[in-house]
């Protein structure tokens, strides 16, 4: 057994862990980050290969080695899911993501109180476990700003210090300054969608992205090759943690990244204090890191599983789980999309940054009046390819008109005609938290290390979510039918399966009774143990989570470097 000692050990060098690694090592702390996957370099991503990266998911976990199982309810047996969307390398999901980088709305941080103020408590579904966040937009704004400027985000401001800016998102919470980089160029799907949305009185704007529209910090501008979602960027224009924060950490001399490291236990002493972590090396060896601060920052499955696996007599239901909330309140973005196939124009959807190219926010959050509607919250509506990236393998699941099979000569002609003439208007729908939507340990399925697989128990088909989905699809189909497109074909997820951007499992809250961690991701039970990342989100909103994960990581790094370090103990 190899043992090393350090000030801070971080499990997972992704969106959150990479930022903490850079900020804490820059503050002079000795940091070791443990990463299950490899560390790539930009030249690795030269092959723009849809089969390898999108279809076979080369940058995502191997579902055979690292299974995650799902069951629709507790009466059924969970089976392994066949694809996982999070990352499996240094830089985590930011290496292969579409780089959509939202600030949440002001009311996304106080959904419960906003709903009660405007519609009364009865509007919240009876069995939802909805709570407000313990952090406000205003408190997080400086850290959103820091994230946008430090990693490099391109966008069009919609609300600059309270002034609404034409061409941006009028529903945006006020920002203190503009984006560091102007928005990326529009492709034809963006042009079509922009016109359509304006004709319906909506407010379209370019989706903000952590992709450089101009050279920035020594990296080149985007070349619009279209290989974003699922791919590593072949020129380093995508502002992944791999090309932004990890080099900063390297430069301090205080940072060590250990790859191929599968952390399986958070170690504690008999006072309940975290003392470090244990991990299997790439050769299967057992290793140990001793640290003053332990930061658990992998994706939600592993964050939850690691605490469940590290239970002690003091915490028999999972480490730092005196609240009983560990593994609960799983949320995922619900998706629906409508394909538009044009006879009179090409769209060439394979060009330019892939998913969610151009957005309307008119039906998201509480941006529209829900009075008389039988649901709360909404969806981001955007345009893009059918399958998040625009290659022909992804598009080959193209929906067909009623009566047309998805194979044979008719399908061939349909696909051959509409591949370059299609776009999809997609809804990314909010999902409320419910305590019975859970992550726990699968009793039957183990991973390549012999550890029990994370098991999801989840079904989004609840009355509030179904009503919201139907409403949003109606709005999309109204636009699509008015578009002049020859084909208008809607696809929905009817199985209840979890879709994208999973969140929850170790939620933050205002007090130890309702949550696992405080707003800094510090566990209420063990002050030197932090859980950082989307596991912390108490509610999700319709926006992609990454920029909020990053802003929270910057806030926590600030609190650790400037407060906790001098005075270890509870930060709240």
């Amino acid at each position, binding site marked *: 057994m190899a043992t090393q000692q350090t000030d801070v050990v971080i499990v997972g060098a992704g969106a959150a862990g990479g930022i903490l690694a850079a900020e804490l090592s820059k503050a002079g702390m000795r940091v070791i980050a443990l990463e299950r996957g490899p560390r790539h370099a930009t030249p690795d991503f030269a092959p723009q290969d849809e089969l390898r990266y999108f279809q076979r998911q080369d940058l995502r976990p191997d579902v055979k080695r690292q299974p995650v199982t799902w069951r629709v309810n507790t009466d059924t047996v969970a089976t392994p899911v066949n694809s996982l969307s999070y990352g499996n390398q240094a830089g985590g999901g930011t290496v292969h993501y579409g780089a959509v980088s939202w600030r949440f709305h002001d009311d996304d941080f106080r959904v419960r109180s906003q709903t009660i103020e405007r519609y009364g408590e009865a509007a919240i579904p009876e069995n939802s476990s909805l709570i407000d966040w313990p952090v406000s937009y205003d408190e997080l704004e400086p850290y959103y700003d820091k994230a946008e400027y430090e990693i490099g985000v391109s966008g069009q401001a919609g609300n600059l210090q309270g002034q609404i800016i034409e061409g941006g998102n009028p529903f945006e919470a006020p920002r203190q300054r503009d984006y560091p980089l102007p928005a990326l160029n529009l492709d034809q799907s963006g042009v079509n969608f922009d016109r359509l949305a304006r004709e319906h009185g909506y407010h379209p704007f370019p989706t903000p992205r952590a992709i450089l529209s101009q050279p920035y910090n020594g990296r080149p501008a985007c070349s619009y090759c279209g290989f974003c979602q699922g791919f590593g960027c072949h020129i380093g224009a995508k502002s992944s943690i791999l090309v932004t924060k990890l080099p900063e950490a390297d430069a301090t001399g205080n940072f060590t990244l250990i790859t191929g490291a599968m952390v399986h236990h958070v170690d504690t002493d008999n006072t309940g204090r975290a003392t470090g972590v244990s991990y299997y090396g790439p050769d299967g060896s057992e290793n140990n890191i001793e640290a003053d601060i332990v930061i658990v920052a992998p994706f939600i499955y592993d964050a939850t599983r690691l605490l469940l696996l590290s239970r002690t007599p003091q915490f028999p239901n999972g480490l730092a789980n005196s609240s009983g909330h560990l593994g609960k309140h799983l949320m995922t973005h619900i998706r629906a999309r409508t394909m538009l196939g044009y006879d009179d124009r090409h769209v060439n959807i394979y*060009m330019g940054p892939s998913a969610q190219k151009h957005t309307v926010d008119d039906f998201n959050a509480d941006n529209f009046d829900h009075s008389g509607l039988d649901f709360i919250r909404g969806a981001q509506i955007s345009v893009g390819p059918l399958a998040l990236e625009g290659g022909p393998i992804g598009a080959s699941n193209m929906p067909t008109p009623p009566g047309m099979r998805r194979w044979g000569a008719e399908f061939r002609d349909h696909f051959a005609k509409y591949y370059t003439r299609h776009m999809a208007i997609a809804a990314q729908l909010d999902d409320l938290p419910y305590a019975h939507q859970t992550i726990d340990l699968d009793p039957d399925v183990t991973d390549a290390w012999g550890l029990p697989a994370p098991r999801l128990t989840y079904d989004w088909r609840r009355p509030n979510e179904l009503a919201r989905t139907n409403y949003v699809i109606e709005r999309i189909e109204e636009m699509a039918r008015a578009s002049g497109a020859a084909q208008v074909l809607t696809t929905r997820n009817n199985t209840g399966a979890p879709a994208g951007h999973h969140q929850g499992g170790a939620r933050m809250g205002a007090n130890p009774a309702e949550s696992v961690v405080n707003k800094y991701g510090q566990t209420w039970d063990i002050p030197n143990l932090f859980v950082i990342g989307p596991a912390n989100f108490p509610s999700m909103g319709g926006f992609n989570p990454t920029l909020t994960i990053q802003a929270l990581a910057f806030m926590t790094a600030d609190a650790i470097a400037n407060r906790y370090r001098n005075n270890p103990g509870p930060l709240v």
Partner: protein
Amino acid sequence: MEKTNDGRRNFLIGAAAGGAVVAGAALVREATQEPAAGQTVADGAHDEHGMAHDAELGAFFNAADAATVAAMAERIMPGAPNMPGATDANVLNYIDLALAGAYADRQDFYRRGVGQLDAFSQERFSARFVALDDAQQDEILLALEDGSATGFDYPGPQDFFAMLRTHTMEGMFADPVYGGNKGFAGWRLVGFPGAHPAFSPADLASSEAFAGDSVIGLKTTAPARRG
């Protein structure tokens, strides 16, 4: 050390002969193309086949199963004049190489699936799948797709059909280095220009078909990448 593609050719001819009704013509056409005298296959006309031209035999399938899979793929994406199909794109070669490599864990899935398909075909039409006409083959595939096909245990008919469809699409549209999408047949079918490293503002502003340079694949860009 020179190699010819005789073995590979025999494999493909065998597949074509077994599937004479449907899959035959294009496979035979492809398989019987002779290298010019003295020309090695490695620098011959088959560069887009990637690994394929080095193979002495089919990498996984026996001749009969190869013919069945080729015939299924051709019904899923049939060829027509100016509309390349699965045979034209060499989807069989893609699946064969994948089952010998990345998808080796699905070998028995295919072996059993093809066996069950032929048993069902015998029961329905008293002939193996490859001997049926197009309409009969479609009837068989429809029964797989809707789950009504009988006699399947593992894989189930719908799972087998779904896998065949997915792998046919991969063989049509994955880069030719994986053994299908021969001569960019699949990309040309749908108008995908391949792995372009950049598109210009004018490209993005156009609502016409992309009129850029020729189709770009991994082998096209490889020499530039590797300096």
